[in-house]
């Protein structure tokens, strides 16, 4: 595993949803790389396309959504071209998913033990005993020392925090190369949120797993992500190291986002972002942020900005910012 080589390369991913009112472009040309052991945050408001992008990496886009173009290269192989049988050896083992709501993401009528051990037994062919040992260790790692009782329980019998730990354990059970965490802390309280984040950081460092951390919470992303990609209306508008995003944000949307977040050291009035959420069926030509941008110019309407390296390791999709 070459430290600097890319585990995941997403190129020009486009995902469309046909609706009765037209084609909804949920993801409209997204490209990024993820190295081994790196944590990349995919940040944006609801509807920005981050969850759908995450799903596409496992080729699990919910119907009627369709991946219309692009490539998802995992260790050099395009996932999108794989057949179902080959896909199944990727899912769970090379790439794993943690969803937002641990209650709805666990099957209510099966015990926890069935839902944790199933990958190990069905896909890796381990025996019950072997799987059990692995699972017991795993649960200890996520902070559940007494696994025996827990495994016999049903999802509704656990607290929200325990359930999320179980989901994390499930995701890491086959030591995947990449974990897609889709808003993993949104459904839990703030204190548990921090615990979960710390837990994920710990496991990530120990196992050298890459994480695609999807969230709408920029501050949360900063606690775990090495890099952050800011998404808006299905496109990436800014991509850089976390430090740089916070210290020197370039794209007007990123800057507006940071202004909208309450900071203890700058207690002035919050500055919400004006304007309406983008209409993904009827995107404007040119820059999709144009209607809400405080610094737009007429040229922004005509030309669609591509993601360019404006400073070393700092990519921005903005006409004006390129010139600066």
């Amino acid at each position, binding site marked *: 595993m070459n430290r600097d080589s890319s585990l995941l390369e997403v190129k020009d991913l486009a995902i469309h949803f046909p609706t009765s009112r037209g084609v909804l472009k949920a993801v409209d040309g997204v490209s990024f790389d993820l190295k081994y052991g790196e944590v990349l945050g995919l940040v944006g408001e609801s509807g920005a396309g981050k969850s759908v992008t995450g799903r596409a990496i*496992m080729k*699990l886009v*919910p119907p009627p959504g369709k991946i219309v173009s692009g490539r998802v290269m995992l260790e050099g192989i395009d996932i999108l071209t794989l057949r*179902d049988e080959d*896909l*199944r*050896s*990727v*899912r*769970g*083992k090379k*790439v*794993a*998913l943690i*969803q937002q*709501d641990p209650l*709805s*993401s*666990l*099957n*209510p*009528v*099966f*015990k926890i033990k069935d*839902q944790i051990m*199933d*990958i190990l037994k*069905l*896909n890796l062919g381990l025996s019950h005993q072997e799987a059990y040992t692995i699972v017991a260790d795993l649960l200890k790692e996520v902070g559940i020392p007494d696994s025996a009782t827990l495994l016999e329980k*049903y999802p*509704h019998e656990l607290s929200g925090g325990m359930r999320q730990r179980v*989901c994390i354990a*499930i995701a890491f059970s086959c030591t995947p190369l990449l974990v897609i965490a889709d808003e993993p802390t949104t459904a839990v309280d703030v204190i548990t949120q921090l615990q979960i984040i710390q837990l994920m950081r710990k496991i990530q460092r120990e196992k050298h797993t890459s994480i695609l951390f999807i969230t709408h919470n920029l501050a949360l992303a900063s606690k775990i992500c090495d890099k952050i990609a800011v998404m808006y209306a299905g496109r990436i508008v800014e991509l850089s190291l976390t430090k740089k995003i916070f210290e020197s944000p370039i794209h007007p949307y990123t800057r507006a986002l940071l202004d909208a977040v309450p900071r203890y050291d700058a207690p002035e009035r919050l500055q919400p972002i004006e304007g309406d959420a983008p209409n993904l069926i009827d995107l404007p030509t040119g820059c999709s942020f144009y209607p809400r941008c405080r610094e737009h110019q007429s040229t922004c309407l005509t030309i669609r900005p591509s993601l360019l390296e404006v400073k070393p390791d700092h990519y921005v999709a903005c006409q004006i910012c390129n010139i600066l």
Partner: protein
Amino acid sequence: MIRGTYVIKRLVAAVLSLFGVATIAFVLFRIVPGDPARLMTAPGIKAEDIERLRASLGLSDPLHIQYVNWLSGLMHLDFGRSYWLKAPALDVILERLPATLELVFASIIIATVLGVIIGVVSVMKAGRLSDKVATSASFIGFSIPDFLWGVLFVIIFGGLLKLLPVSGRIDPAISLKPVTNFMVIDSILQVNFIALQSSLTHLLLPSLALALGLIAIIHRTLRSSLLDILQEDYILTDRSKGLPEWYIFFVRAFKNGALPVLTIIGVQISFVIGGSVIIELIYGWPGIGTLSLISVNRRDLPVVQGIIVIYSLITIIINLAVDFLYTKLNPKITYG
């Protein structure tokens, strides 16, 4: 034990239900025009003799005494003596009960198996032609009442195509020792394949007629519940684990989807049992349905009352069984 109290509560409710039913059965026939004693005797018999007959049947006792006798008899499993058949009413009923039970169970089994198969096919081919055909067929199967299906089958398979027998439980020429009085079971126990084949072919049409409505409901319920479940987050989790699709569908999704189907079967049981009466009439099936028709005509009160109680008992027992099966499958329900 939480589960224990649930069980007791349900049993108590069941017993109370039975009491209610027994009372209704009792009351119904005490307000009847049509004196059983008179029906049993030839015209021209003297009034005093009829009165004596009535007294011997217990019909001239005051009503509340009759009621108390009836209820206390029930608790000792004594349903009284049949006016006509000179035997304890319970024995008369029990002799014919296996025939009805065989019919009802066969219908439930056929309905569940076929309903589930067609439901699964509908889900796998949702939106396509086979699904649309299945849904329309379900609608028709559900709308047309069971006894009309019974008649239709007699006409088509018995009259037009002459494929299947439409009368009785078994070919009268075959001799089978009545052990359990369940023809199919007896044939298997005595390793009599001719009898087995005959009993099965005789059972087919009546139980299918009874089953059609239930097949349709099971199909519809399973289809809609499975389609909903397949969109759930936990199914996405299972897919993201790379589990095989057949496992996700038939084990993970199915267990969730089966729950509403089980509930609906419980609801429909009483309709299946009710429909069996006329089906027995159409197919000359010697069960308690035909017995009830005969007994009502003859005002054979003990038998009629007993049959009403037995029918309710069957319904209640099957409902309890379905309820318990449900609590076993759904871990969220452990108490009433």
